[in-house]
């Protein structure tokens, strides 16, 4: 790209960006390369200076750090703090970084050693509760989703480069689902968190006749109590409701409450 780029005369320089991953499946990073059609244009928007998954070498001079994954080991806190120190703008990329993601499912056991013992027996492994980035450092921007949606990342990055305010929809997935004229999952007898989950994924799951699991966390002002009520009257067990609410960590508080109310069903072995 030649020289100084601008948008309507306002400078839009190409920021240096780096990608990092803590505990995660690396799927969100992969998503960025999963849109072959727009890849080159995307790459001309930002200058990637570090991306271990696809490039060797790299520099620590970057303006934007995209961090994927949740913090699950003390050494990751150190890495995260170092990244924060270098970056002007720290972006939490994906549900793990935003809420703890599926990783935080292990936090639900009352015995903190349960997870390690189940998998490794007496073999020692270092671990801690799975936590979102914001528990340790200041996060400037959240990109929700498990996985993130490439189109959304592109939009957000474009807005960043141009200097537009990055906004997320405040309304729930249901809105997008209806705009796509899907048949409601509840009409098909399936549970769905669409009515309380933040939109922006274009109802990715309901579009495929698969109920939402709330990977993007709560919509603003989400009426969770009412949805619980609705699910109950439609015959879904408290366990099934909890399964969805606790899956990605976005509804942590409600899930913790509900878990207390629900029977323990082997959730806290060793307690």
């Amino acid at each position, binding site marked *: 790209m030649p020289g100084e780029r601008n948008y309507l005369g306002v400078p839009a320089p190409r920021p240096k960006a780096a990608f990092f*991953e*803590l*505990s*995660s*499946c*690396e*799927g*969100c990073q*992969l*998503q960025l*390369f*999963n849109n*072959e*059609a727009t*890849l*080159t244009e995307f*790459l001309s928007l930002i200058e*990637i200076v570090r*991306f*271990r*998954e*696809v*490039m*060797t*070498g790299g520099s620590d001079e970057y303006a934007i750090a995209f961090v994927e994954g949740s913090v*699950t*080991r003390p050494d*990751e806190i150190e890495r995260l703090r170092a990244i924060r120190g270098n970056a002007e703008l720290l972006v939490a990329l994906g549900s793990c970084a935003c809420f703890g*993601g*599926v*990783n935080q*499912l*292990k936090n639900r056991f009352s015995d903190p050693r*349960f*997870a*390690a013992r*189940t*998998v*490794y*027996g007496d*073999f020692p*492994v270092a*671990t801690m509760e*799975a936590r979102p980035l914001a528990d340790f450092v200041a996060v400037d921007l959240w990109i929700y989703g*498990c*996985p993130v949606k490439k189109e959304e990342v592109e939009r957000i990055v474009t807005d960043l480069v141009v200097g537009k305010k990055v906004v997320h929809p405040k309304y729930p997935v249901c809105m997008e689902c209806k705009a796509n004229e899907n048949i409601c999952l509840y009409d098909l007898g399936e549970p769905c968190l669409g009515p309380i989950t933040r939109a922006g994924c274009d109802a*990715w*799951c309901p*579009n*495929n*006749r*698969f109920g939402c*699991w709330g990977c993007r966390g709560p919509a603003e002002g989400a009426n969770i109590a009412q949805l619980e009520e609705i699910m109950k009257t439609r015959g879904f067990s408290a366990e*099934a409701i909890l*399964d969805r609410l606790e*899956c990605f960590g976005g509804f942590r508080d409600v899930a913790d409450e509900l878990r207390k109310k629900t029977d323990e*069903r*082997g*959730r806290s*072995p060793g307690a």
Partner: protein
Amino acid sequence: MKISCDINLRHLTRVEGHGNIRIRIESGAVREASWEVVETPRFFEAMLVGKKWENAPWICARICGICSIGHTLASIRAVENGFGFEPDTQTNRLRLLLKHMETLQSHILHLYFLVAPDFFGTGSILPLVETHPEEVQRAARLKLLANDACDLIGGRRLHPTRTVVGGFTMLPARDELRHLHHRLRAAITDLHRAGELFAGFSIPDFRRETEFVSLHGEKEYPFIGGDLKSSDGVRRKEWEYKEMSNEYCTPQSTAKWARLSRASFAVGALARLNNNFSLLHERARKLAELLQLEPVCHNPFMNNAAQLVECMHVVEDALLLIDRLLAEKPGEPRRKVRPAAGRGVGAVEVPRGILYHMYEFDEDGRIVRADCVIPTAQNHANIQHDIEALAREAAAAGMGDRDIEHFASMLVRSYDPCISCSVH
């Protein structure tokens, strides 16, 4: 002749996850040669405990961002086997088609984005966009095709949404399947070109005899379920996966290691191909010939060639599958399953090798115990032994630090390790 070297490569690049290579040679003698996995464990097997069956495939997809489809399918298979549920032909065909498309996309991603830069002498694919636009476009085209196909069948290329226990939530539109057929046919030419490109690369001449483990194909090159087989002659049933993998913990890795008849074994494209070569489709066998790949091949670097051969095979097979799907009237996408107490194992050949999921259920279909054995975990010990052998050869040949580091990295990369997945 150089007699000393000290390599300490932290966080190997262009692989999925975090691994370190350490090689120390003193006065011509290998003091240390190790492959360390430092990835953080996420404890998926523990997360699943107490969860109802329908959670398993959805959660387990998140074990790995690259082979989420494979994990989903293995998980679904384990649940279905546990409940004694037989999917219908339509479902089986669609699942295999989906599996194929994941194989294609993952192999292409690995070959072009992660491996090819080694042969072009660049750090990443980014410079190749300028210097080799045609190759990059070809890679992008193939990957796009495979990704689109995954969207079409699985609902999403990553962490699929349509794949559920009992079948699919929804079927792909028939005209879209037809369209996919067209695109797949066109992909054959692209794969031939890719073959020519990779045939021109000089593959390091390295050989270490090992055992290869994969599914055993009866009539077809195997991907989903069936018996287990090793090149040393071990044969097991799917539910006996434990005797095939024998996982154990080791201090140098947060991922477990595995062994069978020898100190280590290998899984992956090369293992599958070594064990089932005769079942490859015609064009794939021709491509193997062009790439000078013959079973049983003991050069781990040739895993990349095997991946390319498999790309051709899955494209040919996908064409057949679509023909069959289109020849029949679409049936119900999904059937109801009834949970039952028991144990179920699902073995699926994912891009990096054989993957097992095992769940034990209580009578409500709640998971009491879970076990996931990841291909890369099965490969770790083999990688370790390869690195040792490579270090010895390098020491003997008096190679420089940079060369050793380069070859060792390439070696690990050729396994296409999925490290975070192996730790999970």
